[in-house]
């Protein structure tokens, strides 16, 4: 590998242990992972320079930029060598070509500083790269140090490790690693005359993830053209047709045979039903039938858009980034946020991001490290990584992360789910967009490298134990500040005094330029000069440039006459603009590299040529062996114990260790935060004011009930929608103005039963959306969330050969709030009023009635008579009451006089859900009483104990401070101690 010499190395250390926060963090983490022998970790930040710099210039840079004189000192070296140390030393460097945002910023800042200071006449520094050094004291042998490096300090996917410990002494790099340069050579792929086996082999070898039937369709197409495809053509088609991009499973025709819908799973009625297009015939159909005039853009753009006020709409999109997060949790989750935010920026002519959401599904963080399959990271490491990734990207972009949830199940071990959402505000006049023939094809933002190639196809297959190695190139590190700059520039170009400077915009996500330009050109045509795409380093092949998923890029179509103004706006924000081609009306996508044509794709074939399949789906009841959950029988004697255990369990406890790391206040719009009340209890949904000068708000909440999927995916879907609506109504949202988004994450859908569960969930979505009059406005699916273990591992660990996630549907809801000053929070207020539980009976669910209850509760909240409102789920009323006491920092003494035989079950958890309301005694409660059985919980918030008294039996009598401690600390043990402080 060719290299450039490292001329200087600056090593910066804290002057005392107490200022080495990274060292302390590493020590905690290592000890948590069982490396108890480690006694201390000291870190050093390393900057390596290439350029003709004098020692004086380096000294200026240290003094003015790289070293904080209050707490740091630096050594400057021109010979690269290990330091003298008794401790074991590990240095962590990036792999060649991996994004190093600090190095990019440092390079610019250092050259600027030397120039401005007169210390240099030009830009003397050519390259900077960074690394971290860990000095680890107490280690007893080399293999332990190597294990530490692998499991805590570095991820081989994006980083490389150098060790000096015991008898190992690696040579440190003395040169900058320069990625290899590939000479131009046009490659065609021989398809003509190949049989099915050969076609399948080509698909497999090229990691195209195309089925034999799809390969045949491509073969036919090129036969008609009388030639073979070039590699770039074949790869473009594979990206466009990938599950990730085209959702071929959810959009396929389906023959369903099995239990009827709607009735509970005890039904023996079998039906047959055909869907021409599953998605269109269920979820999209409900939206079409509901035909709400406040839905401004549904299913057509990068995000759905609903009305906000006279001038603005609200865009909402939720994405998953599961496969990348399994392999590199930090980078995977961060780029997931980055991609979803770009969907908002690329919605219409650009929406401004105003809030993010995060929902994680992972395995239990106390998973036994010895029972980890090869190729799988420990759940605790995954969870910490994805939290950090979501935190850093959102915080740095200045987008508040306001709402989320966390779910644990061992089946998420190898396939963690990372759902990231983003909400934006967009002027109504900018919702429509259309590129015009003659517009320039313009790429803006970050430069293109070899990162993320094949991400869309990678995301579409199942994971195996060797994926971390094979698909390392699909993993990327994000650079949030680059994206913030793109946002600043894009919105200024949108609002330019001469009018919007572009006719369309979309983000570069999965598939990179191939899918962004391919989509924009769909009804037109385009010619692209690939050599004009700005590169991070030279020597990329034409197909690498076209398919790279390098982050923080967007594609615009710009009328020629506006190019100068656009360049000017972007230059002011320091964002690179490249004119890479032209849209035309040719119906073809021509790809050129310098003077050569490297691809010429028929856009109609590319977008509509994917063979339509008919899938067979069956569902005849819950799988055998799945017994209905049989919880411990609740008695007055054990109820306190059960409730306290639930409150502290990782699936129910406070998410505080997560959301405290998110800036949920930035932009100043927060009205209902993740905590509510003086006691910092949980909120049901987030509320923000998108405009600081208005009291109009939006509420954001979600529902996810994957634990209800086994009995029946149909009802799982219904309950998820109901939960999302309930959470939104709790804070004061208007149920007639709620829009929802679906995110399906399934294991494999190859077999008929798995397909059957998908059909039932889709039908549940349709039926509930209609009953509740709640339209879907956007959605996304991620299938093949399963992992194949090596046969040895399966035997060694006594695990199944394939671990599939439980089918998981996230429903994210966005509600409208006319006046946020009427919002309600869940904390009990210190007032002598009436507490009542409104129960939704899921033994005999009546969705029409449920819809009316939601409406009646919302009306009561709007009347101003509700002081507190909280949702209760399957953990029961008592847990929810405890949370209300925690938020209000007040006890309550409840004397249950008039109770039914179900009362205990309602209190401590069964299948039912509902609302707990603290209402004024003067309130008109009749409309709710008429609709449902409600449970009166007369009681005065007072004192500091939660006490439940049933017929003189004390069910429960615990200090609120005890409840609080259990609930607040449930996650701390697993996430490494303190929340903050």
């Amino acid at each position, binding site marked *: 590998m060719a290299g450039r010499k490292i001329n200087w190395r600056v090593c910066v250390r804290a002057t005392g242990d107490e200022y080495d926060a990274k060292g302390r963090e590493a020590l905690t983490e290592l000890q948590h992972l069982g490396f108890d022998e480690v006694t201390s970790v000291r870190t050093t930040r390393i900057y390596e320079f290439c350029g003709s710099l004098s020692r004086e210039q380096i000294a200026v840079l240290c003094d003015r930029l790289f070293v904080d004189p209050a707490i740091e000192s630096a050594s400057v070296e021109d010979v690269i060598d290990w330091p003298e140390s008794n401790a074991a030393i590990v240095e962590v460097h990036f792999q060649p070509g991996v994004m190093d945002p600090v190095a990019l910023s440092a390079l610019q800042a250092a050259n600027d500083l030397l120039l401005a200071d007169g210390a240099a006449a030009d830009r003397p520094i050519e390259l900077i790269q960074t690394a971290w050094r860990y000095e680890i004291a107490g280690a007893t042998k080399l293999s332990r140090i190597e294990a530490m490096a692998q499991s805590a300090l570095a991820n081989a996917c994006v980083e490389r490790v150098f060790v000096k410990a015991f008898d190992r002494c690696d040579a440190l790099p003395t040169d900058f690693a320069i990625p290899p340069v590939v000479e131009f050579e046009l490659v065609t792929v021989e398809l003509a005359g190949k049989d099915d086996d050969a076609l399948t082999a080509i698909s497999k070898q090229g990691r195209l993830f195309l089925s034999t039937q799809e390969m045949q369709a491509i073969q036919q197409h090129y036969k008609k053209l009388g030639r073979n495809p070039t590699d770039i053509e074949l790869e473009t088609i594979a990206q466009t047709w990938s599950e990730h991009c085209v959702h071929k499973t959810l959009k396929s025709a389906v023959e369903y045979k099995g239990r009827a819908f709607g009735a509970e799973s005890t039904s023996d009625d079998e039906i047959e039903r055909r869907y021409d297009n599953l998605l269109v015939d269920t979820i999209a159909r409900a939206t079409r039938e509901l035909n709400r005039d406040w839905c401004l853009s549904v299913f057509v753009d990068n995000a759905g858009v609903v009305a906000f006020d006279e001038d603005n709409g609200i865009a909402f999109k939720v994405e998953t980034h599961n496969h990348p997060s399994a392999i590199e949790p930090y980078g995977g989750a961060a780029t997931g946020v980055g991609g979803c935010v770009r969907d908002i920026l690329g919605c219409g002519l650009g929406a401004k991001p105003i809030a993010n959401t995060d929902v994680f599904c992972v395995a239990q963080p106390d998973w036994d490290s010895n029972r980890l399959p090869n190729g799988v990271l420990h759940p605790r490491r995954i969870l910490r990584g994805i939290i950090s990734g979501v935190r850093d990207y959102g*915080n740095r972009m200045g987008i508040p992360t306001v709402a989320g949830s966390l779910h644990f199940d061992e089946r998420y071990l190898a396939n963690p789910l990372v759902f990231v959402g983003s909400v934006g505000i967009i002027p109504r006049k900018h919702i429509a967009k259309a590129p015009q023939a003659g517009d320039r094809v313009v790429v803006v933002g970050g430069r293109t490298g070899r990162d993320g190639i094949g991400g869309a196809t990678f995301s579409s297959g199942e994971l195996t134990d060797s994926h971390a190695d094979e698909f390392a190139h699909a993993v990327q590190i994000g650079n949030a500040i680059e994206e913030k700059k793109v946002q600043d520039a894009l919105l200024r170009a949108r609002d330019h005094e001469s009018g919007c400077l572009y006719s369309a915009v979309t983000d570069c996500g999965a598939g990179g330029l191939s899918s962004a330009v391919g989509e924009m050109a769909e009804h037109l045509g385009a010619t692209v000069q690939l050599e004009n795409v700005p590169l991070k380093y030279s020597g990329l092949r034409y197909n690498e440039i076209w398919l790279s998923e390098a982050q923080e890029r967007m594609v615009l179509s710009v009328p020629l006459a506006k190019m100068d103004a656009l360049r000017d706006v972007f230059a002011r924000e320091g964002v690179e603009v490249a004119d890479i081609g032209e849209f035309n009306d040719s119906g073809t996508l021509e790809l050129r590299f310098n003077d050569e044509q490297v691809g010429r794709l028929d856009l109609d074939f590319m977008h509509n040529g994917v063979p339509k399949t008919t899938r067979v789906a069956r569902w005849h009841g819950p799988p055998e062996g799945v017994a209905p959950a049989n919880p411990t029988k609740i008695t007055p004697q054990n109820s306190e114990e059960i409730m306290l255990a639930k409150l502290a369990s990782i699936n129910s406890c406070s998410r505080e260790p997560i959301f405290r790391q998110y800036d949920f206040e930035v932009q100043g719009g927060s009205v209902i935060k993740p905590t509510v009340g003086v006691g910092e209890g949980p909120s049901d949904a987030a509320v923000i004011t998108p405009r600081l000068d208005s009291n109009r708000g939006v509420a954001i909440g979600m529902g996810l009930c994957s634990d209800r999927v086994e009995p029946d995916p149909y009802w799982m879907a219904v309950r998820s929608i109901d939960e999302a609506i309930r959470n939104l109504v709790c804070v004061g949202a208007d149920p007639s103005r709620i829009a929802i988004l679906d995110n399906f994450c399934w294991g494999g859908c190859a077999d008929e039963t798995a397909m059957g569960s998908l059909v039932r969930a889709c039908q549940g979505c349709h039926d509930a959306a209609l009953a509740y009059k709640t339209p879907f406005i956007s959605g996304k699916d991620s299938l093949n969330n399963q992992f194949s273990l090596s046969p040895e591992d399966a035997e060694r660990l006594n695990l199944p050969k394939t671990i599939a996630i439980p089918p998981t549907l996230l429903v994210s809801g966005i509600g409208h709030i006319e006046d946020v000053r009427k919002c309600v929070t869940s904390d009990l207020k210190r007032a002598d009023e009436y507490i009542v539980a409104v129960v939704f009976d899921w033994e005999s669910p009546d969705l029409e009635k449920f819809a009316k209850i939601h409406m009646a509760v919302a009306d009561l909240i709007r009347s101003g008579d509700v002081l507190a409102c909280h949702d209760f789920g399957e953990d029961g009323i008592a847990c929810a009451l405890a949370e209300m006491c925690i938020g209000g920092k007040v006890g309550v003494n409840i004397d249950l006089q008039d109770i039914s035989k179900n009362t205990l079950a309602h209190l401590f958890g069964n299948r039912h859900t509902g609302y707990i309301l603290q209402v004024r005694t003067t309130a008109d409660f009749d409309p709710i009483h008429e609709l449902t059985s409600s449970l009166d919980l007369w009681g005065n918030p007072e004192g500091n104990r939660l006490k439940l008294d049933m017929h003189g039996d004390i069910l429960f009598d615990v200090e609120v401070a005890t409840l609080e401690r259990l609930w607040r600390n449930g996650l701390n043990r697993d996430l490494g101690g303190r929340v903050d402080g």
Partner: protein
Amino acid sequence: MGKPRVAILRSAGINCDEETVFAWNLAGADASLVHLDEVVATPNRVDEYDILTFPGGFSFGDDISAGAIFASRLGRQLSDAVRRLVDRGGLVLGICNGFQVLVKAGLLNVGDTDTSCSLTINTSARFTCRWVTLESNAPHCAFLDAGRKYFLPVAHAEGRFVVSDGGEIGSDRIALKYAEGVDRIGPINPNGSLNDIAAITDSTGRIMGLMPHPERYVRHTQHPFWTTLPEVADPDGLAIFRTAVKNVG
């Protein structure tokens, strides 16, 4: 005098600029955004303003350390312009990342030349977003009402105030300290700051840097317990901007 003119300096990664404009305007100022590159190119532009604000965010990604690159870009000429502004009665406010910038640019030096101060990584080593109670300390600070307690949010990973070994900070330079509050749940001091310091001023009291975000509490519904409280006329954050508007010039 008409409304004081406020410049809010933004750069790559600054992200609290718009709400800071809103807060100043609500307090009776005439605020606008100015890009850092413009004042670096023409430092005299500072002379057009009465108040300069360095807002929150992650300027240049907080790469190297929080505020370090922004501070390095200020340069001698711009620092001179800032001092001119203070000399003619103007004010300078650094919020969160802006505080980090002021400290690292040397505009808030705390004592003799051997003592340097800084804001470094929280003792928890994590980003923390929470509301804190603050006690005002400096009777001559142009931004604060002496003796008032403020309740404001912090949101930072590098807010721990430190001074170099053996150094000290005069008590007259401490503007706000983290303090005990009613119904406190979290720690008093969210980041491990020396002497619970949350804000400091220069020797004139006309330059203040603070870690908490006053621009995030200028409306009733921004308060974390607003659903339990009557509406107040001057939310603690707005009070800081109002006092500054009163004291400028």
